[in-house]
């Protein structure tokens, strides 16, 4: 099942930008979930996305990873336009994501879950390399003791870690994490945060959706705030925290001093 990927080459490719989205629009019926959104992510960054409920954060992930079709706009990833690829090709090209609701392959053991990512996410790997890669990834996320457990028996924290492990097994260039610490205890959330930093140390660019502003501001180098499908603010965490439009979107008009 080896497939040839066809890309359009882009001449104005800048080396330090890994993902560049221009004029992204997505409508659900008459409702616009994303309105003409532009943003760029630098290579090696941790890029945070926040916003109130229904701001279009998960929709943005879905259209970039091609789970949902894009209505308008261009997505350029690692020098190539990817909006014409299917979802599985986007993954094979090095852009992998996790889901807000933890997804697992529930009927197979943990190491086979990771094997799926290794075998299909990155078609180049063969032979002993696959086995080593699985062990390496399981050690990396700290699931090596659970490797023979059926995935259905895992706790929420372990499920989230496993989802990140399968994503890492595809050897991505960029990883999109959709609320990785939602529903976890403080200690577990700290584990995931450490893991995110460790992933970033391995030269993997990260985009992070997070509701919890403290967590997001603590970890990201750059933050974008969405509101009703539009970008209302983008910049360093300090700048975004003090931006009056952001405070208004989150807390209401009367808190803007």
């Amino acid at each position, binding site marked *: 099942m080896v497939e040839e990927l066809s890309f359009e080459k882009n001449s104005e490719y800048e080396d330090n930008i890994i993902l560049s989205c221009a004029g992204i629009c997505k409508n659900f019926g008459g409702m616009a979930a994303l309105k003409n959104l532009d943003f760029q992510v630098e290579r090696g960054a941790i890029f945070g996305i926040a916003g109130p409920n229904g701001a279009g954060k998960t929709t943005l992930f879905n259209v970039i990873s091609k*789970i949902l079709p894009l209505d308008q706009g261009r997505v350029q990833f690692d020098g190539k336009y990817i909006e014409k690829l299917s979802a*599985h090709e986007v*993954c094979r090209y090095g852009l992998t*994501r996790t889901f807000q609701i933890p*997804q697992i392959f529930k009927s197979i053991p943990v190491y086979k879950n990771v094997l*799926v990512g290794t075998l299909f996410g990155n078609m180049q790997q063969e032979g002993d390399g696959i086995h080593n890669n699985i062990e390496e990834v399981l050690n990396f996320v700290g699931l090596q003791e659970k490797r023979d457990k059926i995935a259905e028996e895992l706790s929420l924290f372990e499920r989230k870690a496993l989802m990140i492990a399968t994503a890492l097994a*595809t050897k991505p260039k960029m990883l999109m994490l959709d609320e990785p610490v939602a529903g976890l205890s403080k200690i577990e959330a700290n584990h995931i945060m450490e893991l995110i930093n460790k992933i970033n140390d391995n030269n993997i660019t990260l985009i992070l959706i997070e509701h919890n502003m403290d967590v997001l501001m603590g970890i990201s180098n750059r933050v974008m705030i969405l509101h009703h499908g539009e970008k209302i603010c983008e910049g360093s965490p300090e700048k975004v925290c003090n931006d009056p439009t952001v405070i208004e979107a989150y807390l209401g008009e009367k808190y803007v001093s």
Partner: protein
Amino acid sequence: MKLKINIYDFKIQLLIISIMLFLTLLFNDIYVTHLIILCMIYSAVAMNWNIVAGYTGVMHIAQQPFFVAGGYISGILSVKLGYPSIIGIIAAAVIALLFSLVIGAVSLRVKGIYLLLITLAVRLIMLSFVLYFIEWTNGDTGILLPPIEILGVKINQFNAIPSFIFAYFLMMASLILVKVISDSKLGLAFISLRDSEIYAISRGINPYRTKLTAFVLSSWLTGICGAFYGHYLGTIGPWDLGWSLLVTLLASMVLGGLGTLYGPLLGSFVLVFLNEYFRPLQLFRPTIYGLLLISTLILLPNGLISILTKLKSRFHLNFLTKMNIMKSKIESGT
């Protein structure tokens, strides 16, 4: 040399099943042998169906058309065109494969109830084709098929032993096919699509192509089974596209255990023999049959095969507790 028998070894399991099947020949009862042959054919079809419905999680009902198409192709080739029956059987496999490729390419673009409806339509379209092209299919009367002839041995219901062996090989081939697929890279793709399609796609699995592969892999042996079924019973007709055969095949798979290796095998044997057991009830037979089906599905949602898995884990647990008690006794020095 020490002979070690491991019951979890697939070859040993095949051996046990084979011995049990061939022991039934000792009854020397032509009717029992006939039932066993039917069981083996139904289980072969159900096992192939299980590749798509159980392992890949794509529920469809086009397996019966593949099965009946095999019977008709072999019938038309051997009766209307005068080819040897073995050519008919090979053609049945090829045609079933192409048929499934076309049906799959069209229907796998949609999911769930829509897929079920499309495959239901396939059944109805096939029925009207059978009733329309009377010069080929004999319409309502059905085709009367000659026995299969391999090396001078005639295979039909009046030659129990050769038929038994043929059906046995079909069943074993299906069992091995399912086992090989479920252990392979492809099988892993099937299972991941079943467990979470959106997640599998986002980990690099091409959903459409993988499902189509499952569809095509499951059809060719079904075609051969259909051809054998026709030659064995001596007829194939529009009644084979009816609900009764569909329900028997579907129930063997679901009752036995969807997505399990031995589920469909167990299911078809239980169903065929229950059906015979309740024969004295005559008109009430379908009612009893239905009640049993419903109660099994409620009490054992993972199929009859889950009884075996439960027994296994209970036995294993007992063994472990005994070991622990012994260990503590030894440690305390008594």
